[in-house]
């Protein structure tokens, strides 16, 4: 009986901690800026769009997936195609990494596959910086 009560209380604590931490972290979390791109094979993104977290989600409504533009501290950029290299699932982006909600794969902000089942890196696009604009070349 004591064991039952212990398990029950442990379960309750786990669920409550989970919900509380999720709510707390959600409250402290701001959305990643979204840049809506016009239908073009070169997407210009003003540098001024970057906030302190250095991520911009490029919304490309004419394509099946978005593009994530990442600015690294040395002012290098990476434009990543948000399609899981495992089974084409649309990826979930946070400020700390890129995740596949379906099968648990994860990628770093360079697009490198960190955890299986994904094996291959994410597709990336050529990026040019011209004065105050970052250009993403989709082809």
């Amino acid at each position, binding site marked *: 009986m004591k064991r*039952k009560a212990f*398990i029950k209380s*442990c*379960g309750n604590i*786990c*669920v409550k901690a*989970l*919900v509380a*931490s*999720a709510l707390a*972290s*959600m409250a402290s*979390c701001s*959305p*990643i800026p*979204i840049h809506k791109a016009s*239908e*073009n*094979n*070169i997407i210009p993104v003003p540098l001024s769009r970057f906030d302190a977290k250095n991520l911009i*989600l490029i*919304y490309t*409504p*004419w*394509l*099946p*997936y*978005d593009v994530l533009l990442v600015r690294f501290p040395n002012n290098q950029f990476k434009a990543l*195609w948000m399609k899981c290299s495992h*089974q*084409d699932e*649309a990826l*979930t*982006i*946070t*400020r*700390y*990494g890129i*995740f596949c*909600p*379906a*099968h*648990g794969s*994860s990628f770093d902000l360079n697009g490198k*596959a960190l*955890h*299986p*089942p*994904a*094996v291959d890196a994410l*597709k990336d696009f050529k990026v040019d910086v011209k004065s105050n604009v970052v250009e993403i070349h*989709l*082809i």
Partner: protein
Amino acid sequence: MKKVVILLLFLPQVAFCQIFTKEDSLSAGLKTSNANTVISGYGEAKINMDLTRGESQANITRNVIFLGHKFSDQISLFSELELENTKVENGNQGEFALEQLFLKININRNNYISTGLFLPRIGIINENHLPATFLGCDRNFVESLIIPSTWRELGVSLNGRSYNLPGLNYTLSLMNGLNASGYSQNDGIREARYEGSLARSQQIAVSASLLYYYRSLRMQVSAYYGGSNVPKTDSVLFSRNPFSLPVALIEANLQWTKSNFQTKLLIAHTRIIEAEKMNSYYHTDAPMSNIGAYIELSYNILSFLKPKATQRLLCFGRYEYLNQALNVSENTTRIAGNEWHVSSFGLQWYLLKNVCFKGDYKLIQRNQLQNQELLNIGMAFHF
């Protein structure tokens, strides 16, 4: 005039470079051109040594062929055909079954519908059951006996994610209910699954999940509530509605990953709400509730011994607790060995990210039963 000719010659190319056409995106691989079929698969094999009984068994646990077809950017087919234990013959417990067969229909960028035979998002292994992604030669007991992975049913599921709360994903599923004659203390709700085969659909079930990524933490809660098929012969004893003889399952899990270290924590609890009625009708021993939890720790020791190695050697430990008869009705006797304490330790050597060899030791302690020690070695792959 010369300038005009040069301009006319170059104008189409300038236009081509600037306007994103369908053909451009096709050639860049960003859109699907025509039919697009993918074949992949996974498999696992193991040698199981029962150190307590002095018995040993070698087996190809499963081989699965995945076939996917992209009809368009909006509609895709996913299917998995599984063969367990190499062949299906009387007495060898082999199984040849469809593990998934669903159409994925994109509604918009953030939401899609799966319809057909699909795996609801409950627990960790149910949706992500590739053998090279879980630790040890076998799936853990909690996600086999409490959450009956791989649990697939026929229905429709809405899967989505949020732009406004980065990291938040959700699912909401409607599917057929369970088979009431299959509940037992030994197998929980496992033998009550229809798995898409001649499922009675008078009773239905709903399940929902919230999955959230925060920093290195993956948090998930999921719940299932569904009816069980009601015998036709007795409408007095059993109420007849879509949720008659209900079963409720709630599950929560956490995964924390920091470079080469990973922790998993999962708890699941099932209630068979009218177990007593079902037991008296079917002469079964279904529990009113069962529970299971585990904690698992793993570390890539090659990152310490050989920091530049691309291979990984994970050492892991897992502790599981299960109670297959947490509550039983007055007229039901608890089975011997309903409480499990399972300690597992092992190594998993990844030659590649999707090819690994496994070895583990398990100590199973169950009340009223002799302790059991198992030693397993195996291999797993997916492609």
